[in-house]
């Protein structure tokens, strides 16, 4: 079995074969013997060269799959080149217009800058409240508020586009 694992833009090629005991793994061309066992759903214990790792798999509500190694989180895309199946590609960090999205479900409590306003980098455009905290969404760059796609009092979901700054 061969997989391509894409982490932070870098593609790792992992070839797996069952060894006499455990797995024989070739990671980016290097042979590594791995003793792996899933101790409970989404939790894998690995022993590699005597070192023990516990890796947790987490599917974020964005759809990304994270693998936690100790306290380090890695968002990984898994491709199986044979079947050409691929897990959701990571969203590219686009240039051009900035879409301001709701970072969490909540309620829009204030629109600070209406459409057409000029905006400085770091200036607040909207205030969203969730879990009793008000959070200002700030423009990433200087420009103009092109569109405001919500209004005060509106309930929003994580990922909803609330405004566009160009």
């Amino acid at each position, binding site marked *: 079995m061969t997989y391509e694992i894409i982490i932070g833009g870098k593609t790792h090629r992992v070839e797996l074969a069952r060894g006499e005991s455990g797995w024989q793994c070739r*990671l980016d061309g290097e042979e590594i013997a791995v003793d792996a066992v899933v101790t409970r759903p989404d939790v894998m214990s690995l022993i590699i*060269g005597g070192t023990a790792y516990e890796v947790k798999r987490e599917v974020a509500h964005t759809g990304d799959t994270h693998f936690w190694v100790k*306290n*380090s989180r890695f968002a990984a895309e898994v491709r199986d080149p044979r079947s050409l199946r691929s897990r959701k590609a990571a969203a590219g960090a686009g240039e051009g217009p900035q879409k301001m999205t709701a970072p969490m479900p909540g309620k829009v409590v204030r629109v600070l800058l209406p459409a057409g306003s000029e905006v400085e980098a770091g200036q607040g455009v909207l205030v969203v409240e969730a879990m*009793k905290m008000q959070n200002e969404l700030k423009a990433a760059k200087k420009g103009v508020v092109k569109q405001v796609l919500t209004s005060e009092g509106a309930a929003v979901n994580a990922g909803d586009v609330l405004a566009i700054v160009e």
Partner: protein
Amino acid sequence: MFKKILIANRGEIAVRVMRACREMGIRSVAVFSDVDRASLHVRKADEAYHIGAAQASESYLNIEKILEVARRSGAEAIHPGYGFLSENARFAAACEKAGVKFIGPAAAAMEIMGSKTRARQAMQQARVPMVPGSSRGLEFDEMRKLAGEIGYPVMLKAAAGGGGKGMRRVHAEAELRSAYDAARSESKRAFGDDEVYLEKFIENPRHVEMQVLADEHGNTVYLGERECSVQRRHQKVLEESPSPIVNAEMRARMGEVAVRVAQAAGYTNAGTVEFLVDRQRNFYFLEMNTRLQVEHPVTELVTGLDLVHLQIRIASGEKLPFRQADIRLRGHAIECRIYAEDPDNNFFPSPGKITLLIAPSGPGIRRDSGMYEGWTVPIDYDPLLAKLIGYGSDREEAIARLERSLYEYFVGGIKTNLNLFRRILADDDFRAGRLDTGFLDRLLSAPEPPPERAEERERVAAIAAALFAAGAPAASPNGKPANGVGAVSRWKQTGRKELLRET
């Protein structure tokens, strides 16, 4: 003693109070909103009643509905927890009128202390040292005038406030208007009251508070201080007891002032007197919190007492079972507030379903939690999920145990601030006890320390991702593992390269 107590709260504090009830042989009554049917406090209660919509004003802040449940269930007393109605004197008075004991101070004492401005007036009379400022709520023009007199920076505060809500620091007059409006609106929303007052802003003070307990027979004691300087946006993040800068002599002085404060207000039950401490270790009365604090467990660990048991005993009319001289502090305790928020993304709240939960335990670890695996954290309330408290024979051991337990803690599916605590506890200033209320902002504005062993861990993540995809086998109690002594020859070729070994 009461036979049944209603807990007018949710989350970890409701669970904590219900545990005390069960320990004392008292039946507990939960109330819950639409979105809390599956919450842990409902699972832990003996009785549970739905009281309304998610919005707090329809449920946890709705005095009529809560008293209606008390009546229906036959509860003789109500524990308000913290937040929600806990510092609402109207609620305490309504309980009294309904013949239900409010577990907290009398409404009169709450009214003095619940309004930060009235508290300042009372404390002025009792000659308790205070920060310069107004002792009443101000209209905008008055505020602008006074701020000009005492000089910027100043602090706007909600008279009804607590927990950092409705607070704003203002550096110059130009900022005053928007800060004033924001503080009022936040205070209105959080407490149903928009009175806002002013204090001189003290640059980088420590925030140290003193726990007091008073029975209804005139006995008042203090139980030692808590250092609460690690804050973000006026919200405490980590607390400890004792404070690294308070010695026995200062503790006695501060404790005596705190007892005087409580007595001046005719205070009963558990309360906390907050002080600002400047660099010369002078302390100023800030306010009194007339409720159980979020951070009460650190006091419980160093005193060996159970504050909720004592609250209930006091409310039922018992005398304090000890005197000041009987209180013995031992060891050191530190609490981490685990929030559903994303430290990598401006601490935005992160509600959602908890898909995996691995909780720490073992020596010196106390966990007061309101979450469980499979539970969906609602968006409607404070994002506090759980408190992780470490105890040790000294501060260093408490830190070490917390670090160990944070290493074990995993919450999957939502973001939490667990990694923030790893960073705080590793910080040199923190370890040296060099704390003030600016500590956390400084830490967060510094560049994040580079991830440890990033390359090695990325390679392990890649291997694990592939193995998960390939469907690695679940544990079998009879499976032959791979890296045994019998497999040593293969290790000679591969494992010995130690390319992935963490040393």
